[in-house]
């Protein structure tokens, strides 16, 4: 046990001698394993993980594990989920676009047509305007037919 620790320490020191910046993760792994002398497997696991992910403490490792597990579950068990999340993002972007004004006049003229359509029939049936709050044009459509020529 102590031999192994010495070997690791020596290895870490050797790399430190070669390179000016000592990898701090290897040193922290060594101190961790020194505090736990009785567990060999934990020592091996710590050193292996520290060599792979140098700047990972326990909390971030938990988070990373959960995220990777969730990712693998999503990609394996729910193959549509990733794609649908992307779809929700893109469709949210799509429906939030500001629309071009260049052809909107056509829409407005169609609205004029629609309000003429609705108002004429509404006035014909109910004698009341529903769109035009000041009625003008429908009069010229309906009234000259009903008023006599020699009224005045």
């Amino acid at each position, binding site marked *: 046990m102590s031999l192994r620790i010495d070997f690791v320490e020596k290895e870490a020191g050797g790399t430190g001698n070669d390179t000016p910046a000592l990898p701090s993760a290897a040193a922290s792994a060594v101190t961790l394993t020194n505090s736990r002398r009785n567990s060999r497997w934990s020592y091996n696991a710590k050193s292996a993980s520290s060599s792979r992910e140098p700047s990972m403490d326990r909390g971030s490792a938990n988070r990373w594990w959960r995220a990777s597990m969730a990712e693998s579950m999503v990609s394996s068990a729910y193959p549509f989920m990733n794609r649908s999340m992307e779809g929700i993002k893109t469709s949210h972007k*799509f*429906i*939030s*676009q*500001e*629309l*071009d*004004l*260049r*052809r*909107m*006049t056509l*829409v*407005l*003229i*169609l*609205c*004029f*047509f*629609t*309000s*003429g*359509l*609705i*108002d*004429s*029939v*509404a*006035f*014909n*049936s*109910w*004698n*009341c*305007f*529903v*769109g*035009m*709050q*000041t*009625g*003008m*044009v*429908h*009069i*010229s*459509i*309906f*009234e000259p037919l009903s*008023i006599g020529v020699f009224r005045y």
Partner: protein
Amino acid sequence: MYLLIGNTVFVALGATGQPKASHFHQYFKSLVSIGCFCLGTLFFNCLHRIPTGFFVNGPPSSRRRWILMGSFIIQAAMILTSGVLIHLDRVSNLPFVAGTFSSGTDAREKAAINDKKAVAAANYYDLTPVALLAFQAAGQVAMSRVMGVIELPTIVLSTLYHDFTADLWGLPEVWQRSSSAKNFFSEGLRRQGKRLASIIALFLGGIVGGQIYKSSLGMAGAIWLAACIKGGIAASFFWWKEDNLEESILPR
């Protein structure tokens, strides 16, 4: 006779019982129309101001895709609802008879009215389609305001006639400024052309509505056509081009 008379004047006269020939509750329709138009204005302006906030002098109101589509879907749904009411004879859908509140629906009443022997009983459900149609009419005006096309308020024609006619005085200057006759007609007269096209569109709408009313389709047919147009506009907003906000900076 009704020239230049709007709903406000209908209400003002009706409150004093003035048009002696009309039903004494006839002005309720005009009152409901004005009230629901105002409510619809509140609603649709709220819809258009959700992304930018409700500031008086704040950023311009939004014309986002979901807002415009939602606005037109709501308008089409309201027209459809009143169309269903008319189609199912829940409200009166026959030509207006002077002195009555509602002109009646079914065949017996139709025959009676044609014989001029009886009049239909007052059906106060007539106020429902009036309310719905007046509410949805506010959506158009809100949209025209949001789009910054101040010269085309889709339902008020007094200002439109005024602006079109008053701008005729500006024609000589536009003629002098434009480089060619083609430029004069394509650029200088664009605003006037829009106004004229709107007036003609509304006039054509009235004529088409009147013809459909007279035909076997009846009143519901015109309402279905209007709902189809509104739904078509809502669908067309799905494929509408996105605005490049850096390029188009329009006065509001």
